[in-house]
């Protein structure tokens, strides 16, 4: 049937060096659609309870959705596993064209299990799966590995995902790099891949992705593209990528500075979009088929680190490797970013870890290494730490490679107070003082501190209306309700798999029209929210099963501590009483009990009580009927 799906998962066992093809059952398509939905269901059903995230039984999945690899604008891919940083569900999204290629090879997703005995990489060309030795590639950085794999294969046109040294060495915030500057960054998926001794995956496919109603689909694509064209945020992204948010964030008082001590950077004009345009940008790039083209490719041409090619320095990276470290030279930030990309680390968590180390050194809780004095503003110290973390060369690198939560526990004293994370995932580049909604969003996001599961700042400061009304930024009123609405809607869209930036423009109605035209099903607009709510609850159940402490729906002490002393939001703070009140309301609206556990009645309403499990044995496609049916 033509429904946007390829109808098969590829299931690879690295230990046995075998692969299976599994049918994607209709009920899974209907109830979970793709991406995050598939991931939540498959991880719940296939990962043994209490699985060691870095052990052979954890699953590493690359999942697509029905709209991926079609002209539907701004679609990405989703990587799902149990996170070694949080020990809970991890879904990390990545653009580029790796996901598109999964479908061209004939699959809706790749499920990887087991651990290889020696370093390997996978070569997937339609039905042909090869386990190839990565002995000579192991130890190289993420971009070099891409080049070496293509060379080894003699296929320049293959699309490759790799890990850097950080992933090999088990750094808990290491990423998976999909060529070139697109990464599944957060939560340590790279460490899971490294633990499996899987250096890379190269893929190329010749299958066609077919939609159910081509004419309707064409129209829906046109409409979605028009949505994007007429959205101011999308044009700003085309113009200067996420860097346009740097001056905005600083001007409203939410740009973190010195490990979130302040939320305003006095030297912001050195690191904003104009500075990047002047010193870096040369041309554009986009993820597969995306009209927004938020990527600004460029090069650092002058200065100490010249010269190298760089992507745009994204908002989050500027915030976390720039202002939050009090580093204000855009070329230095580009260099630190490049180190993160090549060594294979999430720049958000890496930046947070360095900021934490700088503060710990300031408080004399840790000692600076011989080669670099740990202090805010020092590019040299940041560079030193990034390398020693990724290469796990010394004690300090080993300590910090576990992320701020575990590092702080080992350091002791008051270190946990300024270790800025939720559930083990470091807090990204938006302050919470003066934005209670964002505080609640971090505290409740399913994968730990994340700004992409709901972004109340958009209402509080960005001018978005809630049910036609202006939202008062500093008040806690309605924040739980607004956030839950966003979390559900976005989780619904993460099954498709939308890029956040596409969702700035494309309306709910347009998404549903795209989905209906592709699948041939008639679903109402409310389907997205309902689907999202079901998935959000399923993930919560998974996290509770894996031992989530519900007391961890909270913020670190530093963020609920004293008021801001400078900047536009001077005097603002995030009171822990306010957080508690919002959280109570949040649990109530979610139909969770006071401990944050979904109540049985609600699970029934969501259809999460019925026990339909995805099992590999049941979905196995016998090799002889292994044909793609059009």
């Amino acid at each position: 049937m033509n429904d946007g799906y390829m109808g098969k998962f590829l299931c690879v066992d690295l230990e046995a060096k075998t692969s299976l093809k599994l049918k994607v059952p209709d009920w899974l398509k209907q109830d979970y659609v793709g991406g995050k939905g598939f991931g939540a269901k498959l991880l719940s059903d296939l990962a043994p309870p209490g699985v060691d995230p870095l052990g052979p039984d954890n699953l590493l999945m690359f999942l697509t959705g029905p709209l991926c690899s079609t002209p539907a604008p701004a679609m990405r891919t989703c990587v799902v596993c149990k996170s070694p940083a949080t020990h809970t569900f991890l879904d990390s999204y990545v653009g580029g064209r790796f996901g598109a290629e999964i479908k061209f090879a004939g699959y809706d997703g790749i499920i990887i299990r087991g651990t290889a005995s020696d370093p390997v990489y996978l070569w997937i060309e339609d039905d042909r799966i090869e386990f190839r030795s990565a002995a000579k590639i192991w130890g190289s950085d993420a971009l070099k590995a891409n080049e070496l794999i293509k060379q080894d294969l003699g296929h320049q046109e293959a699309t490759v995902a790799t890990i850097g040294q950080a992933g090999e060495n088990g750094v808990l915030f290491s990423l998976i790099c999909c060529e070139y500057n697109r990464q599944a960054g957060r939560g340590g998926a790279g460490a899971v891949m490294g633990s499996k001794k899987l250096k890379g995956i190269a893929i190329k496919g010749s299958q066609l992705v077919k939609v159910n109603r081509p004419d309707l689909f064409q129209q829906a694509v046109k409409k979605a593209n028009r949505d994007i064209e007429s959205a101011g945020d999308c044009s700003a992204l085309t113009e200067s990528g996420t860097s346009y948010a740097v001056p905005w964030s600083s001007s409203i008082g939410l740009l973190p500075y010195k490990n979130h001590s302040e939320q305003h950077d006095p030297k912001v004009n050195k690191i904003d979009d104009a500075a990047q345009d002047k010193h870096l940008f040369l041309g554009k790039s986009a993820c597969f088929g995306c009209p927004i083209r938020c990527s600004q490719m460029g090069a650092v041409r002058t200065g100490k680190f010249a010269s190298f090619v760089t992507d745009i320095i994204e908002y989050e990276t500027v915030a976390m490797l720039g202002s939050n470290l009090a580093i204000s030279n855009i070329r230095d930030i580009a260099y630190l970013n490049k180190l993160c990309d090549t060594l294979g680390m999430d720049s958000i968590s890496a930046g947070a870890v360095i900021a934490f180390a700088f503060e710990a050194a300031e408080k004399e809780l840790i000692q600076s290494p011989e080669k670099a004095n740990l202090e805010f503003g020092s590019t040299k110290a940041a560079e030193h730490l990034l390398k020693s973390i990724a290469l796990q060369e010394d004690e300090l690198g080993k300590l910090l490679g576990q992320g701020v939560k575990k590092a702080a526990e080992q350091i002791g004293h008051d270190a946990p107070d300024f270790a800025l994370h939720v559930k083990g995932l470091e807090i990204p580049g938006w302050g919470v003082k003066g934005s209670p909604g964002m505080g609640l969003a971090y505290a409740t996001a399913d994968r730990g501190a994340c700004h992409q599961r709901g972004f109340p700042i958009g209402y509080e400061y960005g001018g978005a209306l809630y049910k036609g009304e202006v939202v008062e930024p500093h008040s806690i009123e309605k924040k739980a309700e607004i956030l839950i609405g966003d979390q559900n809607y976005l989780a619904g869209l993460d099954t498709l798999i939308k890029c956040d930036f596409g969702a700035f423009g494309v309306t709910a109605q347009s998404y549903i029209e795209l989905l209906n035209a592709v699948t041939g099903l008639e679903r109402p607009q409310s389907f997205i929210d309902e689907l999202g709510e079901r998935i959000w609850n399923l993930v919560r159940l998974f996290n509770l099963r894996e031992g989530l402490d519900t007391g961890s729906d909270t913020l670190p002490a530093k963020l609920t501590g004293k008021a801001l002393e400078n900047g536009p939001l001077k005097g603002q703070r995030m009171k822990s009483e306010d957080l508690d009140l919002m959280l109570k309301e949040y649990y109530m609206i979610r139909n969770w009990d006071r401990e944050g556990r979904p109540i049985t009645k609600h699970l029934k309403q969501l259809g999460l009580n019925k026990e339909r499990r995805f099992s590999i044995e049941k979905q196995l496609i016998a090799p002889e009927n292994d044909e793609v049916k059009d």
Partner: protein
Amino acid sequence: MACSAWLFGGYNPHRSALNIDHANENLYHFPVVCNQCENTYCAKVCPADAIYRDQETGAIVVDQEKCVGCKKEFCHEYCPIKVIHVDPFTRKAYKCDLCGGSPRCVESCPTGALELVVRVNTDQEEDR
């Protein structure tokens, strides 16, 4: 993608008639499209005489009936920019036929990066 949909009824840029090459970590992109050559290498080497110029659109097209999917894939081999391919499934050559005069890639390029330019040669032959 619009191209593979036009040719084969589904999406996959590897089965489209144009290539977009990327270089230097995606710093540069080069769209490579058939030149609809005046000196038509692909047609000259075809043993089955399957390649000819469509008089209406000016495009060089493959006669699907005549193409025998020769083993050596001569047309591909001798195309200077490798924009004629033999489809692995149909074993027939395919290439850009300008979609019969109104190219889908141009129509569906949301960014306007592609456009159809008509180059008028001295002998008034239309080209891309």
